[in-house]
């Protein structure tokens, strides 16, 4: 039992933490009524994904990843032998991918914030329940 915990939880704690944060973010997106809080949840969700992928670059401890079924593969900068000889290094590719991912996430947040501002100007509120009420009111009055 203790071996199992060590193998699957303690040694891979960074993956577990990232997954817990993903779930926190997703819960915020689903549960919160306020549009801004939803957006904060989305940001947490995305950032936690990045955290997970960056942890993937740690091939210095390649054995741990391999027991979990993950292979380090053909990364471009260093050879596989380097890991076997015991050099500690990071696979740079996940970092580079997530650098791009961060840019995308920033753009998404910017677009969403702009839309939230417009929603506030139009409806005077950013609470989802009140927005739906107002929309039903528009529907009755025939406003576009």
């Amino acid at each position: 039992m203790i071996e199992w915990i060590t193998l699957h939880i303690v040694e891979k704690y960074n993956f577990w933490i990232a997954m817990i944060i993903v779930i926190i973010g997703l819960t915020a997106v689903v549960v919160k009524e306020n549009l801004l809080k939803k957006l904060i949840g989305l940001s947490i969700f995305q950032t936690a994904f990045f955290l997970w992928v960056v942890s993937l670059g740690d091939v210095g401890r390649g054995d741990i990843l391999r027991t979990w079924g993950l292979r380090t593969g053909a990364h471009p900068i260093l050879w596989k032998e380097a890991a076997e000889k015991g050099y500690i290094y990071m696979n740079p590719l996940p970092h580079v991918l997530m650098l791009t991912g961060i840019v995308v996430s920033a753009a998404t947040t910017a677009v969403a914030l702009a839309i939230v501002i417009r929603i506030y100007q139009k409806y005077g509120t950013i609470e989802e329940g009140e927005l739906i009420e107002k929309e039903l009111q528009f529907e009755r009055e025939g406003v576009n």
Partner: protein
Amino acid sequence: MQLVEHFPVLIVGLSMFTAYTMLLVGFLDRRLPYYIALIMNSFFFILSLFILDYVLTVGPIRYWLGGWRPPWGIEYVVDAMNAYLLIIVISIIILGLIYSRSNVKHEIEERKHVTFYVLVQLMAAGLYGITVTGDLFNMFIWLEIASLTAYALIAVAGGRALRPAYNYVIMGSIGACLYIFGVCWLYAATGTLNMADMRLLLPLLYTDKVVQMGFAMIVVGVMIKAYIFPLHLWQPDCYTWAPSTISSMMASVHVKVMFYILIRLFFSVFTLNFIWQYIRFDILLCWLAAIAILAGSIWAIKQSNLKRMLAYSSISQMGYLLLGLGLSAFSYWGVVGLVAHILNHAVGKGCLFMSAGAFYQKEGLRQIKDCEGLGKRMPFSSAAFTIAAASLIGIPPTAGFASKLFLILASLDAAQYQFVVVLLLSGLLNLIYFWRVIDKIYFVKHEEATKREVERRGDGLPFSMLGPMLFLASLCIVLGFVWLSDLSTPLMNQILANLGVGGSL
């Protein structure tokens, strides 16, 4: 290296460059960006014709960006499937641009015109990029460019479009995140991001939980973007309140390109062997598609808003594509139906949304009940609407009949007879919801209609709006003959060969 092999990257690169040039030129004159976009996209259309010719006669184009070899560098791969989709995307973007000429003046404030066209061009760049790329991560970048611009283009209408646009941002970001997460799982398992390389490395790992999980995440992520049935919730409101041009572009090509990612994933990254032998996903996909087809149609019958009805109809039509994908594991006719329906639905739904936009622009009507006597007031738009509706219902000799025939053949070939029933039933449901509108247009008399008929001849719409609409409507009929004749056979055989599906027409 031949000149044609540079064309895919030229299309994508020049699209991005054009978008920013348009923004700069927009400061000089607000009308210029429209013309620049039109000229450049027409140029891309010619290039894409050369690409299709080269792909059909010589073979797939493989372009290495910066000269870096594929497993490490980014590779652009164009085979028959890409070239076919690229032509569809570029032509619909051009027709949408022509249509938008007078439509944006009506639906969007003047000061936003420059940014509107810049965003359309950027969205086009994203769509072209997804179409030509052979690298999973590069595909994510183009996917995000296409999606971010789509969020902004829906919100540009203002008013009621804002809340749906916000929902789309949230749902779309979750979808894109799941996509990139799945790609990273596959990367962790294989150590490569190149599709062709991954296809070679994956077969040893098909039983691997990491690979299967990565596959599942990509599928769910892309399904959100392509509004496959249970994940469609953002879509109806977006299409209802977005500008008509954008509704028509998104319903006809944006979602097709999103669906194309699934096709690439199924045929080029994984193999059909994996789908039907290792995870038994095919029959599940077929049933999901059957539910999508029926549920979308039934919801469409309930709607009172015209564009909203078309939006639900799109959900049902995406079910056809998914059914083709699911059936392709059993029979190559599934792929034929899928490939044919990509074009048929792009043409038909583009035309329907364009006519809905024309009705709104001229008569200010959004509700189906207001369509009374429209056949007298706007004869050409109504005719275009009716022909496109007939195509989607699947009445011979229209294009929709051909793709439904292929799908029925696929179900029969696969001995999955329940899906024949689903297809026939959905044809009936399509007839019901389109008949509600057509009945109002042609068979209900309107007192003012006769009066206005004297006042003006035709639709009272400029040719820039009528032209694309009527062109697409005539294409609905022409394609019906093309699919059933021998004309499309070389292309279809090439696509079947490139996707690695046995059999030929």
